[in-house]
């Protein structure tokens, strides 16, 4: 089989020459193993017995009623995955690849910490050393995940450059990889980076959409009218969308970080950026006239990224997916509403998808059932969301 290196004009391998050999090696390994029965069986057993797949499809009846979604509101419960988010689907797949490639060391970048925790977990499981790069700002706002990674035996390295967020952590991870490429596999956490990463990550995450489609058919006898997911780099979204991409009657909606709103800082690369190169691929990007990459902003560390995966750029241009945004404020109120009406504390990232569905409910209800990828749980966010919402633990 062949591996997608480009999505329309987007993607490619804009990286230092030093890592081209490693990208070739990864491409070959992926081609070899992605259909290999032993590999698939090992990954399948872990996804079933370790991650807890298939994750349930849940009908959120109280929100459905509150938001007037008469045809149903369904959650694909990735928050129930081991480690608390969809990130483990990709981390496990790549760790198993890394072991087959004979790599002794794993590195990763992380924003919200969910990919870092997933990678630390998968590395512990197979006995590989793990270092995670994380922006200092993110280490503060996702403190619990830093502790989890360290408990799992990973080294967490703070990154001070730039704004100390996901972009800077990714750059630093790439520099580590350029330096240690012979021994090290870099597990990118989102569907970004040089080819073949966007394709590999999307494929390991496509289990979300494939399961969700079958579950919707089983539960409702039909497909959803609209499928909604949040988009930072875009891994849970692409994984979900891939299950429905060939169903022309299913509308696909990606929700980016609207941050402070139209006049302020944000993370809406697809809505407000233009194509450029960051972290090895050509894709929509927040940048100034000189091509200097802009600092993104979002209340959620996982969406605080000025780039986006190249496949999303392509899906945007061809009009297959509609990309919208939700502000920090909208996401925070949706976070609280989901917690109180469903007893589900969602991740702040996921809360952007919830906010859009709430705010666009009057249009969405006309198109049939709505499916949201509930990409992660919000345990990691309780400090930050509590501070923003005025909820604390004082006696």
């Amino acid at each position, binding site marked *: 089989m062949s591996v997608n290196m480009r999505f329309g004009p987007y993607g490619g391998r804009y990286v230092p*020459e030093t890592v*081209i050999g490693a990208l070739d090696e990864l491409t070959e390994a992926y081609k070899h193993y992605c259909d290999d029965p032993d590999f698939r069986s090992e990954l399948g057993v872990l996804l079933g017995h370790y991650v807890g797949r298939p994750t349930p499809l849940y009908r959120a009846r109280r929100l459905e009623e509150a938001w007037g979604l008469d045809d149903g509101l369904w959650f694909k419960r990735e928050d129930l995955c081991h480690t608390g988010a969809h990130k483990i689907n990709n981390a496990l797949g790549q760790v198993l690849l890394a072991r087959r490639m004979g790599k002794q060391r794993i590195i990763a970048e992380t924003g919200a910490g969910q990919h870092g925790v997933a990678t630390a977990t998968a590395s512990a499981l197979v006995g590989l050393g793990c270092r995670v790069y994380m922006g200092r700002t993110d280490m503060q706002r996702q403190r619990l995940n830093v502790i989890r990674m360290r408990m799992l035996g990973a080294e967490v390295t703070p990154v001070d450059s730039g704004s100390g967020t996901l972009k800077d952590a990714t750059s630093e991870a790439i520099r580590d990889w*350029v330096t240690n490429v012979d021994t090290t596999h870099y597990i990118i956490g989102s569907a970004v980076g040089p080819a073949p990463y966007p394709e590999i990550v999307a494929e390991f995450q496509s289990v979300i959409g494939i399961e969700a489609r079958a579950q919707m058919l089983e539960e409702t006898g039909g497909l959803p009218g609209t499928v909604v997911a949040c988009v930072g780099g875009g891994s849970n979204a692409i994984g979900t969308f891939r299950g429905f991409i060939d169903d022309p009657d299913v509308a696909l909606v990606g929700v980016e970080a609207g941050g402070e709103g139209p006049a302020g800082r944000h993370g809406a690369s697809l809505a407000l950026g233009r194509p*450029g*190169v960051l972290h090895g691929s050509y894709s929509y990007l927040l940048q100034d006239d000189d091509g200097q990459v802009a600092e993104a902003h979002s209340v959620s560390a996982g969406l605080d990224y000025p780039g986006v995966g190249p496949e999303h750029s392509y899906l945007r241009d061809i009009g297959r997916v509609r990309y919208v945004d939700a502000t920090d404020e909208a996401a925070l109120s949706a976070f609280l509403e989901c917690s109180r009406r469903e007893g589900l504390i969602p991740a702040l990232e996921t809360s952007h998808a919830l906010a859009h569905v709430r705010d666009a409910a009057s249009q969405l209800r006309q198109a049939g059932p709505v499916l949201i990828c509930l990409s992660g749980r919000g345990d990691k966010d309780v400090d930050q969301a509590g501070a923003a919402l005025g909820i604390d633990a004082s006696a």
Partner: protein
Amino acid sequence: MPEAGAARLERAFRDAGRPLFVPYVMGGYPDLDASRRHARLLARHADIIELGIPFSDPLADGPTIQAAGQAALDAGIRPSDVLAIADDLRDGPPVVVMTYFNTVIAHGAAEFMAEAASHGVAGLIIPDLPVDEAADIRAAARAAGVALIALAAPTTDDARMQQIGAEAEGFVYLVAVTGVTGGEMSMDDRLRALADRARRHIPVPVVVGFGVRTPEQAAQIGQIADGVVIASEIIRRIGDAPDPPAADAAVDAFGAGIAEALAR
């Protein structure tokens, strides 16, 4: 039509009579005037000047060049400011500009090349543009008379070395270490074998850089390659100087020391 960049670069190698000294100046660091002065001082000793355009996310650079570039960006330095430094070097050695790819495409490749050529820039080094992604950019550069300088690395296999060699013009920049700029190279059999391999497959001159700090190291590189690039060490010396005159003196003395070591 002025002489094309590739021809000027190739002439620099023919005329030098010794391994070439290619010092790097970060445009706009520590400020625009100082970087222009440093470039002129280094031009007295150098055979080619490498002029860096600061970029927000320099993946191939270690902490020293990252910090210098960030300082330049914080001071509002723009790519056009850096290209204009080349005007001051027209009567000196040829200038190659080091820039990340997004800077080039943000301006439009053809426009960027034309602007670089109008300032007399002979070549362009784009560290995040490997040979397989470079066809369109190479065509735009050629059309403007600017040489696209390819990079090769320790991890580049023979087949890719040949591919790089087939497209190369001006010279090829061989990365001495598997890593980012500003580390420490060491002269050993591996590096000798790498340089041999590169020169076997690449028909144009091969210049070695990354991690070269001292005149002794430069002289060692001179024995196995056609020239040596020094970047982070120059920036470090500028940063360590107590005041601008001391920085100028440090740059001048360092350049003289390297040139002398290469001439021995």
